[in-house]
């Protein structure tokens, strides 16, 4: 088998069970691909070769004895470097955590570990997930495998690029305002943002606590359905996870979509968006109709306020969450100054990058005495209006279909100097984040040789329906099978 790295998770699973190859061979195939191409793509911050091969050998032993039923057993995964991994460096792509080695696993990492997964390494991101291009990494930017001059999207850009380049069989990311959905679209893969509270965030570094979610990237939606089953559910260590039943996603996605009501919100088809992006979404709508779904025009009238509300809420919560980095408890500690205050000031000045400082400053301002009502409270009220838009819409439709971003992947350096321009990239992903909905990116074609994804938005905890729509779409299209030429 020479092309093992190209397999999907489910194909790899089947091959392992049929003894066509071993987990060690799958792991070798991934590292071989990483060694060939990651000096160009730069998707990994840390490789975990030694432990990965140990995990692979342990999995092969179990497979030989028929010991485990987990479909993730022996399958190599890449993990965004914002998930704490026991005894494996976890930096959040920040200089302030450049040498941080957590003594514990995030809940999701622990679950994958128990399922017998193989941890290839930790992938690059915008520092503490603040950004949409992975250019805000404190170490180096990641490149899009489809065009190395372009960004992979972000903040989970390393996980998306690594999967698109067949360096792993699936990967983990986080999505606060679009950080899984946008890079999945830019890199031509599938990616799921779960409903707020669906997956435990324990051990994943907090950015915007009222919005942060974590989720998987997959080569197919079918793969995502398998992974989600292992990540979802209540966790006593994360009190934002309600006790809501975890569906049998792999079974649910097999049902057809006849009669499914799909909404097309007019506010998501705006002046100035890339024509190719718009056309791919409308073609997908047509495809869904052919498959028996009913496409309905809807309106989400407060859409254009969502970005402004987000860029109050997010920095405010960032300024609070980043306060824990003080040079005392862990991470970078500069102790050349004269007193305690100098430790704080020097450690934070040298440890944080430009975007993190910018958001801390905005948030500190928005929460400072006299401004709370005008900024934070106002933004939370607008958040209610955005949420109510969706609640109204879901009385009429089951799923909402939109573009993921106004244009495909842009060039490195193109927007980095203009933070506001960068923020406006999130215009189609942020509203669903504010409402706590689930959202799935599915490849839907190309514009000027760059991948374009569609976004399927579902009701809270209704992952099964968007996964079903996405999987059924992939049964009749082959965009997700296209690969970049590296």
């Amino acid at each position: 088998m020479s092309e093992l790295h190209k397999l999907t998770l489910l194909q790899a699973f089947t091959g392992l069970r049929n003894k066509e190859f071993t987990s060690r061979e799958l792991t070798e195939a991934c590292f071989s691909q990483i060694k060939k191409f990651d000096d160009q793509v730069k998707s990994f911050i840390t490789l975990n070769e030694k432990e990965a091969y140990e995990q692979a050998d342990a999995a092969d032993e179990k497979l030989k004895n028929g010991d485990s039923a987990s479909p993730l057993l022996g399958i190599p995964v890449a993990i965004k470097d914002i998930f704490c991994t026991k005894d494996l460096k976890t930096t959040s792509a920040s200089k302030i955590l450049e040498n941080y080695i957590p003594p514990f696993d995030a809940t999701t990492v622990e679950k994958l570990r128990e399922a017998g997964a193989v941890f290839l390494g930790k992938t690059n991101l915008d520092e503490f997930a603040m950004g949409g291009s992975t250019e805000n990494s404190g170490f180096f930017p990641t490149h899009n495998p489809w065009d190395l001059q372009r960004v992979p999207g972000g903040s989970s850009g390393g996980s998306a690029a690594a999967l698109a380049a067949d360096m792993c069989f699936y990967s983990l990311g986080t999505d606060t305002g679009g950080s899984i959905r946008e890079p999945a679209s830019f890199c031509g893969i599938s990616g799921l943002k779960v409903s707020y509270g669906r997956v435990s965030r324990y051990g994943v570094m907090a950015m915007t606590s009222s919005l942060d979610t974590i989720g998987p990237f997959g080569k197919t939606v079918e793969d995502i359905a398998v992974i989600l089953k292992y990540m979802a559910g209540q966790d006593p260590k994360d009190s934002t996870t309600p006790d809501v039943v975890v569906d049998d996603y792999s079974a649910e996605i097999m049902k057809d979509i006849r009669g499914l009501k799909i909404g097309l919100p007019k506010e998501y088809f705006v002046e100035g968006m890339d024509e190719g992006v718009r056309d791919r979404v409308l073609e997908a709508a047509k495809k869904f109709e052919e498959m028996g779904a009913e496409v309905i025009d809807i309106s989400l009238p407060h859409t254009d306020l969502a970005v402004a509300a987000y860029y109050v809420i997010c920095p405010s919560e960032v300024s609070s969450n980043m306060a824990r980095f003080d040079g005392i408890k862990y991470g970078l500690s500069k102790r050349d100054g004269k007193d305690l205050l100098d430790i704080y000031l020097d450690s934070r000045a040298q440890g944080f990058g430009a975007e993190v400082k910018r958001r801390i400053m905005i948030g500190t301002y928005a929460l400072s005495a006299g401004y709370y009502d005008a900024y934070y409270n106002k933004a939370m009220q607008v958040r209610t209006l955005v949420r109510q838009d969706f609640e109204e819409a879901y009385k009429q439709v089951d799923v909402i279909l939109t573009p993921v971003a106004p244009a495909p992947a842009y060039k490195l350096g193109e927007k980095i100097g203009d933070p506001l321009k960068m923020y406006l990239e999130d215009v189609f992903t942020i509203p669903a984040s504010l409402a706590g909905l689930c959202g799935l990116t599915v490849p839907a074609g190309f514009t000027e040789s760059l991948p374009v994804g569609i976004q399927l938005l579902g009701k809270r905890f209704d992952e099964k329906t968007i996964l079903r729509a996405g999987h059924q779409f992939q049964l009749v299209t082959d965009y997700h099978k296209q690969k970049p030429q590296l």
Partner: protein
Amino acid sequence: MYKFTIAMKLSHKEVEHIATLARLRLTEEEKEKYSGQLSGILDYVETLSAVDTTDVEPTSQVTGLTNIARADQVIESGISEELVACAPKSADGYVVVPKIFENK
């Protein structure tokens, strides 16, 4: 209704004040850059003030959950030594911090 009085352009001094509150030491160059960029961003979020939100309840989170509490029981993490060892300076199971009071 709230009365909004919002500074549209942040001065050098205001940027310094925010940085002090946020415990960030900024270079002169950073202060200059941020005063422009933060003003631009605040101008943009200012569009929110035009929205009528009379009687709209704020949404701070969407779980529908309130007051999640566990039983008041001690659960050993099993890694307390390792956690303390993450600190740049630690001794006897404690994190060491610099003196904050001078002996007179």
